């Protein structure tokens, strides 16, 4: 009996995480393409590069589970760290010249995430705007603000505190990776064991049923928008820290990779289905593929096309193996 249970459990894991075999195949492919791929320094690079994407995927997954989505996460991801940098950097390095305390800058980054999240949440949930078109407009607006304020300039010479998240390492692994991992673990546990986490599945699975069961449906859905936006802002800070500059245009096109990672990881666009662990496998797969394509001899102009083809392939495999509709 216990043995059957164990096998049953293994099968369940396999079906819930259908991308694991795909990841194994991709790693074999990578090691064939370029021997550098399997070196620890390369894999650490992949992790460091994937951490911000991962954090935004956590954010988007939370929203997707409740049956909505937010395209403007990429706008927050770009705008928040840029505004923070602008206010703390000296005028000589393209800042505004106010030279605020860098801690204020970080607070500001979080505050922008908070504000955008509250704004999106209220208008999508309470005022019932269509999530797609509303957050698309927000995304265009936020990206436009980056460009409008700073033109094509780049804010550099950022204080150490501000870039700590993206540039420092603990035990040889980037702080960004640690943070992203911890957020993933907390999110997974929260979704599995916390009443609000379970309520999120109920909301996405059957909104009316959740409401009738006394779940504070609107409060939770708005809260999820807020948490997601803050996570996106933090992810933006990671990238600014890694490249040690803040650029207008950071985050453009990020959101498509985010959706791709979540969906091939088994998170349903209809809400109520999917796991954080699955989304993580999606992030890992996409990051590995991007890395391998860069290491390979494929001409850089073709990388996007190959990237898209591989996402399609992963969707197919996930559909074949998984129980979820991808």
């Amino acid at each position, binding site marked *: 009996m216990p043995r059957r249970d164990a096998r049953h459990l293994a099968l369940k894991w396999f079906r819930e995480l259908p991308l694991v075999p795909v990841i194994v195949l991709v790693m074999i492919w990578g090691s064939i393409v370029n021997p550098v791929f399997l070196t620890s320094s390369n894999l650490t690079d992949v992790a460091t590069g994937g951490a911000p994407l991962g954090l935004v995927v956590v954010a988007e997954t939370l929203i997707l589970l409740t049956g909505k989505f937010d395209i403007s996460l990429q706008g927050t991801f770009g705008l928040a760290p840029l505004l923070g940098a602008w206010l703390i950097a000296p005028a000589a390095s393209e800042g505004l010249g106010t030279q605020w305390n860098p801690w204020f800058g970080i607070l500001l980054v979080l505050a922008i995430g908070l504000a955008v999240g509250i704004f999106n949440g209220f208008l999508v949930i309470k005022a019932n705007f269509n999530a797609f078109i509303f957050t698309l407009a927000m995304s265009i607006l936020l990206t436009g603000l980056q460009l409008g304020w700073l033109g094509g300039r780049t804010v550099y010479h950022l204080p150490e505190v501000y870039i700590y998240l993206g540039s420092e390492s603990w035990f040889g692994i980037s702080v960004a990776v640690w943070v992203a991992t911890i957020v993933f673990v907390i999110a997974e546990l929260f979704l599995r064991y916390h009443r609000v986490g*379970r309520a999120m599945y*109920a909301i996405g*699975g059957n909104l009316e049923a*959740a409401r009738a069961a*006394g779940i504070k449906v609107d409060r939770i859905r708005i809260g999820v928008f807020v948490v997601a936006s803050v996570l996106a802002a933090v992810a933006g800070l990671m990238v600014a820290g890694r490249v040690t500059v803040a650029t207008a245009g950071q985050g453009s096109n990020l959101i498509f990779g985010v959706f791709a990672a979540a969906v091939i990881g088994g998170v349903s666009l209809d809400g*109520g289905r999917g796991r954080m662990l699955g989304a993580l496998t999606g992030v890992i797969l996409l990051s590995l593929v991007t890395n391998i394509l860069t290491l390979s001899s494929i001409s850089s102009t073709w990388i996007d096309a190959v990237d898209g083809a591989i996402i399609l392939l992963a969707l197919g495999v996930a559909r074949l193996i998984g129980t979820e509709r991808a």
Partner: protein
Amino acid sequence: MEGNSPRGAEHQPPVGEALDVSKTFGETRALLNVSLDVRAGECHGLVGRNGAGKSTLVTLLTGLARPDRGSIRLAGAPAPSLADRGEWLDRVACVYQRSMVVPPLTVAENVFLNRPTGDARSPFVNWRRMRQQAHEVMLEWGFDIDVDQAAGSLTVEQRQIVEIARALSIGARFLILDEPTAALEKAAVERLFARVRRMREGGIGVLYISHHLEEIYDICDRVSVLRDGELVLTGAVSDISQPNLVAAMVGSAPSRRATEIEAVPNRSGLGEERLAVTELKVTSTGGSVEGVSLSVRAGECVGLVGLDGSGSVTLADAVIGLIKPQSGTVKVLGRPVPPGKVDAVLHRGVGYVPQDRHARGFAPQLGVGENLTLAVLENVSRGVLGVVNFKARDRIAQEQVDKLQIVAWSLQQPVSSLSGGNQQKVVVGRALAPNPSVLIVVNPTVGVDVASKEALLDAMRKARDEGMAVLLVSDDFEDLRICTRLLVMVRGKVAHQFEQPPWDRQQLIAAVEGLELVGAGDPQR
């Protein structure tokens, strides 16, 4: 749970009570001065035609809306404020028409939706405890469901059980069942009744809403009738005859034969064979078909009767091409149709009324006229460009509106804003509009009021008399009145044929349940 008679509970306050409540939505008066009480240990029936105000009363009794005037009392105390969902859930539980189950979650989670499962007020879910408690609830009330499976994989009956189990495990003493049998097969209805009786004996008060009057007589102690938002009749079921009950529902309109099984004219003068199914085999999770042959001639209506999963609905789906059969042939007007091709079958002159009108029946945002003529668009469009002739279209639509007595303020009214009965009329009208030579109808009267049912059956009867070949798949015996011949399907095969009406209910039920018939398969009385 005390074992003594629930009838001694009259001195207790009612478990749920509406006192003189009125509710208006915009211009529409939904309820006017309605008073109704449900006592502990009774099953109180609530009937009324679509739009009579039943659903509104349910929303008031479950705390989803507040009455404009009057008050709601639960277990003898004034109702809690609307914001306090938790308080409401402790006192009243409702199994709504729409499923309130969350498909991706497990049965156990659905039972304990938004309720603490661990110790005290911990915000964390104790999965082990939750599964165990859900299992205990199932055992206590004799429900046989694995609590670890995803609710999405449950049958309609099992989903209902989950909702009932949720209500019972909260401890609510007042349970509202809103048309619980609409999607259930006969045997499941019987099991539901057994459960309701058990709950009644346990001192729970049940408000039972249904379109099926025989169910009211089966299970209820008292019955109340709503008509146009007013309570027109309430009393012990034993004191009210069925004709009186129907009269109260319908009001001044002449009461029609609502319940008796009508004698169908004999089958002389049948025309040529229009639909021929030979050795059809279909594999389906909804009930496989294991080699069925049947034929329908012009001017006859063949009733195909079977439980959920007997294959009767699957057979209809396969004939129309929604499912591709494993083997066997389907011939329309003597020529075989390509398997699994819906458009080809429809073009051959087959009309189809699908089982689920919301999913396949109509385009909700389009008008009545447009929906009615969806299948005849090419007949009313002109020239190579296919420009629609609106006059011709409206004429055809109006014809169906008159025939089926569709109540709509104009041909432009969106179907989504019609009552359920009128929506179903639109679906049937769409199938009849091209004047098909074969009509395939699946459960056409599920969830519609008595008057609409009459209109629907009348229209199909007329079509039959005008020479259409009708295949009617239904497990509602009322529908079978228009049939000239019955085939009973059990486990994918035709188990019995009933050649000559009138049908004997007992024999029919026995046949459908798969029992051996006493005294031959062909009841000549």
